[in-house]
């Protein structure tokens, strides 16, 4: 088993990408970034530095003002999965139907989709909850459903926009470990947006620190800790040192323009 993620061939590149909204806000300016197959990349930065905008550009939900988003392999749009900050489930549909949704939109019947969904329910530790309605679930469980829905199309690339920001710490830690496990088993690529230094270091093999006004890549840091990373890693001195290093860089990025964190987004 190859334990060196990010060694894969490049999956996609942002080339000098800029995005200016019609209200004049330059959300991104001259962002260049290459994402390798199998990477777990975190975009780390203060609010308003264009992290969500970058994800939407990668997903093709929005197009760059300047520059290009280039895929190195010919992949259809269904090769991208998206997980939002809120679980954003269909409140009128049960867990099973929520996970089925992306396949259903592609014309797959319940019967055809069932094996994949059962398997995923198992992997996100929700077996037995297929009939439950979203409002009957805790925040962490809803997020697990959302992740399962993001993975049900077996995407090559999973985009996650601060998915665990609204969860309590205990739940977040569990989801972090479970997500890493899923990623190592399925070997998809992840771009993970967060404003938590600890989360980004724990999860990713590369942290992209961003600065605001205009949003840009401030520095890229390799996280040279081997996988698998479990709970022992969380308390290791190695982890603490990596967090301090990353935190310092983030501090520099924020101090470039103080007040950038007050955006409220």
């Amino acid at each position: 088993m190859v334990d060196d993620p990010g060694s894969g061939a490049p999956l996609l590149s942002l080339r000098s990408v800029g995005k200016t909204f019609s209200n004049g806000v330059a959300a991104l300016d001259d962002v260049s970034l290459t994402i390798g197959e199998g990477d777990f990349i975190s975009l780390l930065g203060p609010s308003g530095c264009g992290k969500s905008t970058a994800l939407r550009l990668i997903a093709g939900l929005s197009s760059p003002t300047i520059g290009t988003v280039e895929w190195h392999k010919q992949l259809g749009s269904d090769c991208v999965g998206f997980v939002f900050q809120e679980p954003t489930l269909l409140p009128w549909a049960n867990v099973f139907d929520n996970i089925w949704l992306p396949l259903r939109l592609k014309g797959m019947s319940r019967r055809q989709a069932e094996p994949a969904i059962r398997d995923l329910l198992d992997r996100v530790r929700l077996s037995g909850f297929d009939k439950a309605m979203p409002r009957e679930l805790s925040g962490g469980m809803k997020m697990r459903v959302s992740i399962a829905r993001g993975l049900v199309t077996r995407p090559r690339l999973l985009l996650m926009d601060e998915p665990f920001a609204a969860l309590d710490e205990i739940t977040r830690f569990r989801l972090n470990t479970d997500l890493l496990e899923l990623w190592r088993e399925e070997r998809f690529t992840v771009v993970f947006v967060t404003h938590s230094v600890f989360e980004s270091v724990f999860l990713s093999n590369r942290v992209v620190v961003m600065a605001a006004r205009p949003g840009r890549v401030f520095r890229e840091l390799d996280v040279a800790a081997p996988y698998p990373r479990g709970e022992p890693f969380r308390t290791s001195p190695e982890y603490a040192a990596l967090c301090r290093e990353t935190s310092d860089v983030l501090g520099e990025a924020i101090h470039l323009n103080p007040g950038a964190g007050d955006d409220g987004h």
Partner: protein
Amino acid sequence: MTAIEARPGIVLDAEERRRLRGARAERIGRWVLPVAIMILAIGLWDRICVWNEIPQYILPRPGVVLQTLWKDAVLLFGSLMVTLRITFLGLALAVAGGVGLAVLFTQSKWVEMSLFPFAIVLQVTPIVAIFPLINIYVDNQTAKLLLCSWIVAFFPILSNTTLGLNSVDRNLIDLFKLNGATRWQQLWHLRLPAAMPYFLGGLKIAGGLSLIGAVVAEFVAGAGGQSSGLASRIIEAGYRLNAPRLFAALFLISVTGIVIFLVLTLVSHLILRRWHESALRQER
């Protein structure tokens, strides 16, 4: 519904016991109080008639009204059926027209911008003022009444459904786009279900309104003496100073309105109870 009774073997402190008693009392009071007040009011009505020796053609005693309801049952219930037919057909058309227009509006902002003002004009103009026009242009009696009932009832459905279709989570729309959903899929799997609570809220209002629309239309049309709905019974009874029948007809209309409201509330509850906040029991 969750049980309010404490499970046996659980020891409660004074505060929790008080709360339990309060909840129990509230549950009973919710039904008993209005019924008690109603009985009290009817009793008082009866006494006032007797004490003041009010003649029957001015204010009949409640018992007399009830007798009339029984005596004239064939006539009154026959008329009720006529009114109900218009009411339900009007409501059905309002649902079809309101939802149909709302769906059209969400398909194109331009259509919404162009047409919505007309819907408002139709809504704010009093129906009795429009009716003479309808009377001129429409020949068929049923069509006249239906048109009236429809105009009164369709707006809450249109405006509520439009609001509901447009208040879909942006992220969910992105999710649909990301998965290559067609417009039709977006409508069917996302916008329509999301609009359901709004639509049902509009439907509850429209149910009552279509009854009002039907009765008002009959009133205005009934001046010509062609209609046979409840309104024409009321007009007729008014001419003949037959107050007991007038009250009986009025009673039927009110009860019908209440029943329509209760049925629509129940329907709404049954549809929403598994997922929507409004159908959840208030926890304190």
